[in-house]
């Protein structure tokens, strides 16, 4: 049996297992309420919570985009380990305050916090809408990136037996099926299995790459032969971009709707903090590993262009598998692990999208069954739209998509991180800040000015956004009690 046929068989088996888990999760559900469907009845313990956080955080971007970016940029991509760590650091500013409020007031969506915090204040309704719109756009972008990554992976590893377009369609259908059947419970259980596979697979691939290169030092010397400038101290602009990327990813990632919903879904605060303490080591076991894998590709795969660089991981897997049957099986384990990581992120995004659009964007009341099923229909519609987009817009780099998403999402930071610490923050000034910050980020995209002096336009937008939100909140109100909820 060829590697391509083995890949096809492994893919089929894996998808069948996912559907079985989904059916088990459906049978385990307690009722048809949104809290049960979207938050698994708020009963995720340390182990499952940790693995679902892990599998959700490390996505197709990590598995395909980050090796591609390490291949393109060289050693300075060590910054990726730093920005993935910064997410767990920035959670300190959100989790201890948001979690108890979420339990006390029954939050299900990120918009529940905004509704609770700003109540009926002037501008609060538009602020909720603005936050929900930015989050929905960011999630749709994220879903698109995952579908593109799934299609690439399926085509590469099955040697084209499953073409890119069919891979996108079939895998999207399976995710939709198990998410609809089992909700957050199915997503968390499959995430747990997928997280374990991903860790094992990446470790095996890196061991092979380092072994074949003759160790880390030998690998570095090989890279220097191909790209002598790769080891030089980065230019000032690159250092500024490093700091900007740590800020961009650290601040924006903590307000991912799916991350916020996992804060809500934890069984207890104790389980949550232990999961986060474990999560803090994952950038060292995952991001650092994929960075080294991308670097190892520099001497092995010469001359790939920007878009082709996103295929570094599957290309390396092919090389590995060609060494013999044992390597082919190990390569398949990595393939399934990588695909698992991508699918686990896509399913979490899909789950959050349903609740976010139904409740926060369309303002549907939380009537148990009606809202949950509307959320499922919306999720299906968005999945279909993004699958079509993934078919027609294949030549986009994954890192380009990540930056775009984060630059929009980061504009929601004042409504969460400042609002949760500063009672004086007003909805109206937060809304104006959000609009101006978003306009700056969008203008950067429209004018193709991604960075100024290495600093992302989204980060510049956030600085202006936060300044407007805080300065506007310092002015006294025009009439006593006006707009106060």
């Amino acid at each position, binding site marked *: 049996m060829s590697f391509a046929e083995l890949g096809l068989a492994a893919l089929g088996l894996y998808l069948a297992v996912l559907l079985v888990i989904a059916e088990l999760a459906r049978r385990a559900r307690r009722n048809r309420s949104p809290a049960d469907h979207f938050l698994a009845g708020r009963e995720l313990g340390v182990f499952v919570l940790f693995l679902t956080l892990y599998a959700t955080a490390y996505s197709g971007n990590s598995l395909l985009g980050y090796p591609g970016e390490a291949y393109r940029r060289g050693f300075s991509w*060590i910054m990726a380990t730093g920005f993935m760590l910064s997410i767990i650091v920035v959670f*300190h500013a959100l989790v201890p*305050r948001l979690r108890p409020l979420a339990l006390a007031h029954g939050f299900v969506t990120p918009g529940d916090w905004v509704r609770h915090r700003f109540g009926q204040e002037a501008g609060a309704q538009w602020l909720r809408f603005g936050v929900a719109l930015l989050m929905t756009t960011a999630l749709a972008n994220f879903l698109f990136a995952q579908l593109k990554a799934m299609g690439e992976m399926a085509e590469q590893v099955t040697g084209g037996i499953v073409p890119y377009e069919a891979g996108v369609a079939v895998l999207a259908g399976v995710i939709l099926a198990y998410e609809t059947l089992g909700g957050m419970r199915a997503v968390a259980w499959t995430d747990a299995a997928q997280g374990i596979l991903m860790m094992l697979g990446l470790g095996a691939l890196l061991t092979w790459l380092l072994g074949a290169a003759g160790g880390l030092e030998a690998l570095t010397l090989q890279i220097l032969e191909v790209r002598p400038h790769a080891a030089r101290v*980065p230019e000032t602009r690159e250092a500024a971009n490093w700091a900007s990327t740590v800020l961009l990813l650290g601040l924006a990632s903590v307000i991912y709707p799916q991350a916020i919903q996992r804060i809500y879904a934890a069984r207890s605060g104790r389980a949550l*903090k232990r999961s986060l303490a474990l999560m803090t080591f994952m950038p060292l076991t995952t991001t650092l590993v994929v960075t080294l894998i991308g670097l190892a590709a520099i001497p092995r795969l010469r001359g790939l262009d920007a878009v082709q660089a996103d295929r570094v991981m599957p290309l390396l897997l092919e090389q590995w598998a060609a060494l013999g049957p044992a390597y082919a099986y190990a390569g398949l384990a990595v393939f399934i692990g990588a695909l698992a990581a991508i699918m686990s992120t896509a399913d979490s995004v899909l789950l959050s999208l349903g609740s976010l659009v139904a409740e926060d964007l369309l303002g549907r009341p939380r009537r148990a069954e009606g809202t949950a099923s509307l959320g499922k229909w919306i999720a299906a519609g968005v999945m279909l739209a993004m699958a079509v987009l993934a078919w027609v817009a294949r030549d986009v780099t994954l890192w380009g998509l990540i930056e775009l998403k984060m630059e929009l999402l980061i504009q929601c930071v004042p409504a969460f991180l400042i609002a*949760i610490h500063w009672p004086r923050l007003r909805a109206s000034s937060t809304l104006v800040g959000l609009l101006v910050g978003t306009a700056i980020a969008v203008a950067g995209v429209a004018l193709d000015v991604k960075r100024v002096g290495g600093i992302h336009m989204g980060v510049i937008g956030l600085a202006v956004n936060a300044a407007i939100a805080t300065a506007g909140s310092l002015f006294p109100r025009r009439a006593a009690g006006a707009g106060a909820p």
Partner: protein
Amino acid sequence: MTERARAAGPGRAAQSTGGGAVWRARLRRALLAGIGLLYAISIPWYRTAGEDAELVWGLPDWVAVALGCYVGVALLNAVAWLLTEVPDAPTEGSGGSR
């Protein structure tokens, strides 16, 4: 609850019942400050741009410094999380809610 404990940080105040809680809150703050310092050191802004690097642990020296800092961040952050109280019920003044 003491004023110092109340000012100690998110989620800590209401849980504090004595000096141990205040000490843990202070340690947590110190760890978070240490994390900030490590991030500042991890980015080679203080090195001459374009300079050739020595190899340390098989990596260019500025990469090895960054990696060392990130290992430090992971360790400090894990301890900081274990010192953090994440209450399951709202505490006095929590959340900036109205």
